[in-house]
């Protein structure tokens, strides 16, 4: 188990390095940097001025060195101008150059400064992540129990009418991406067309105060897409378990159907959905970005769109690190959890 864990951890760190490097490379492509220089200095500057701005701000080094600086394993850049003042990555305004730390990167907790929000990236991300955390929590609370229930009810008696209708429902939800279900929900429950107006079509106010009225639609929209997928996995797993020998033995011994399902089948049938639920996280992230944009809920996904749309390089890098780390950690948990839950793997 220890060997398995260390192997997984090494792969995780290696993957995180590769992916963050890819993101770093893509966000700091020359045209993006040029756009950054023009937005900082002025749109009409010449190519030579762009080049000198990039040089003064530490963007002209080789890509690996800049990635190292950003990560915090290479000393930050410094630039001494003609007046003798030294500026640098790690030198804050008004701080003498020789007192500044040599390394300042993500590993040291220095995530940079967001130019859109005019705030430290770490502050922006932690506030926004908190808001998205509430959304995710509500989604999980709605999605997981209902998906498992649908899956178990459908897989309990394969081929029954209940199974047919629940399976059709799950297929229909997997065919409805968030931007479709969100639009439908808003039209039905929040527009003047149907006149229902039960909920609000905009969730901006949920940032301060989550109410049933402003949070239901975003949560339902994200949950709906996941429900179908998890339910289908649970159904397949449940249906497989129900045909196993030991279930038949239990039935023949006279255990009631209810007891067979609850005490014998469920525990084994829930191993597979566990991995699926964990692997659902990356996809939830997609849903979060779409739903937060659609409902204008200013959480992590909304921030990512703002950062990408406004060429806010440091913020985009920060968001990517968080997203990638979340995805990789859920993969790890899913692997380890699967190995732990499944006795056939755990014992070998």
């Amino acid at each position, binding site marked *: 188990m220890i060997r398995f864990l260390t192997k997984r951890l090494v792969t995780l760190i290696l993957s995180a390095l590769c992916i963050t490097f890819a*993101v770093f490379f893509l966000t700091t492509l020359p045209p993006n940097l040029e756009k950054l220089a023009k937005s900082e200095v002025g749109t009409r500057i010449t190519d030579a001025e762009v080049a000198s701005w990039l040089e003064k701000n530490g963007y002209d080094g080789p890509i690996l060195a800049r990635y190292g600086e950003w990560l915090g394993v290479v000393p930050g850049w410094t630039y001494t101008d003609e007046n003798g003042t030294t500026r640098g990555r790690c030198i804050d305004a008004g701080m003498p150059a020789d007192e500044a730390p040599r390394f300042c990167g993500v590993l040291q907790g220095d995530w940079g400064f967001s130019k859109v929000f005019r705030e430290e990236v770490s502050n922006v991300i932690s506030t926004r992540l908190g808001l998205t955390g509430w959304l995710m929590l509500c989604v999980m609370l709605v999605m997981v129990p209902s998906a498992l229930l649908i899956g178990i009810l459908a897989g309990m008696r394969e081929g029954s009418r209940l199974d047919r209708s629940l399976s059709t429902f799950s297929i229909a939800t997997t065919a409805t991406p968030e*931007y479709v279900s969100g639009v439908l929900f808003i039209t039905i429950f929040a527009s003047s067309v149907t006149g229902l107006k039960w909920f609000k079509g905009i969730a901006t106010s949920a940032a301060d105060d989550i109410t049933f009225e402003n949070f239901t639609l975003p949560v339902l929209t994200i949950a709906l897409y996941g429900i179908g997928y998890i339910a289908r996995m649970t159904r397949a797993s449940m249906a497989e378990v129900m045909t196993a020998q030991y279930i038949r033995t239990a039935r023949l011994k006279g255990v009631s159907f209810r007891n067979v399902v609850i005490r014998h089948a469920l525990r084994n049938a829930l191993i597979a959905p566990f991995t699926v639920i964990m692997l659902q996280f990356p996809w939830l992230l997609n849903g979060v970005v779409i739903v937060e944009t659609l409902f204008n809920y200013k959480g992590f996904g909304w921030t990512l769109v703002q950062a990408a749309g406004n060429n806010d390089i440091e913020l985009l890098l920060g968001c990517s690190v968080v997203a990638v780390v979340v995805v990789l950690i859920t993969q790890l948990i899913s692997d380890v959890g699967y190995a732990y839950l499944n006795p056939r793997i755990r014992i070998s």
Partner: protein
Amino acid sequence: MEPLGFLDITAALAGRFWPVWIALAATFALSILYKRRLGLYGKLFDSPVGMTGFGIVMFWVFTALFANLIATHDPLTQISGMKNVLPGTPVRGAAEGAYGHYLLGGDNLARDVFSRMVMGARSVLSIAPAATAFAFMVGITLGLPAGYFGGKLDTGLSFVANLVLAFPVILLFYLLVTPEIQLAGPLVTMPWSTEGWRASIPNIMAAVLFVFPIIFFSILWNSRYFTSPARRNLYVGITLLFGLWVYAGLAFDADPTGIWSMDPNLLNVFVSVVFVNAPTVFRIIRGLVMDIKSRDYVAAGMTRGEGPWYIMLWEILPNARGPLIVDFCLRIGYTTILLGTLGFFGLGVAPESPDWGSTINQGRRLLSQFPHPAIVPALALMSLVLGLNLLADGLREESLKD
């Protein structure tokens, strides 16, 4: 003219789709008549679920084919006074012979929602299946050896595949499908053109990804007709000639006849979608190969002295076709959703484009007052993906029966 009521609109819509109904009726009649001779495709007509799915998918395929006949107006023309009008509104000052109503209303730029939806079907259905097919070629060509040989090759390829899968899709799209990225990279002078070829990331990815179909088919024919060189040379030669012609046109924009070329934005979108899908296909193929590898017929092939590529392509691959066909249908649906996501964020497509994702994006701003411009493409997208999922479900059920 009077505005149309709900029943009139339904009747008029049903009437507009007349080429689709005829084509659908012909397809179903012929398929059901000969269903015993058509293998898996014929068996589809034994399952109500599969038949429904197939019907919906074919409805959209025929709509895309006959879009010119079905659309009532030009999808880009704006008619004054028709901004955000409700479904069934008569066109103000309609010219003689032109269609007199906006059947499903107008959008915020006074264009016909119905015609845009119909034309959108064409743009979605011309990208999604092709991108899925390319992703399958890449996944198959890399997944077969990874699963069959295992070892270092497998470890390396699986690591790369997992890297791509760990990338949040939206982030990847935001990074890859931007106008800036098309300008990044040195210009390489090419002998055939004066402008040169820009070594930007989408172009490089296209150059790499588009090779795979050529490799796949060349190996396919080579391993099959290895023993009769004359036929082998003929088939591989035709593949190479035709493949490289298309390849030069699509990846390098260097087709001398000018038939094969791709708009840079479209290329960018296409390549990104293939890139996102290929690792999943790779993993599926690899898993299937590792499973089938231990069967007796593979061992029998080895004892007969068949080469590894013959075994992979002509023994293992045909026996993995069931799950692959099912996944292909599901994946077209998933690709459709991805394309919609791209459109929803306004990435990569022209702002005027009638594709469903960007139409939903434009319509969502006025959703609470005028929902029809967003609802129509949303329902269209949903029904197409639902059809593909039902079709996949029907195929899975029928392929499990034998």
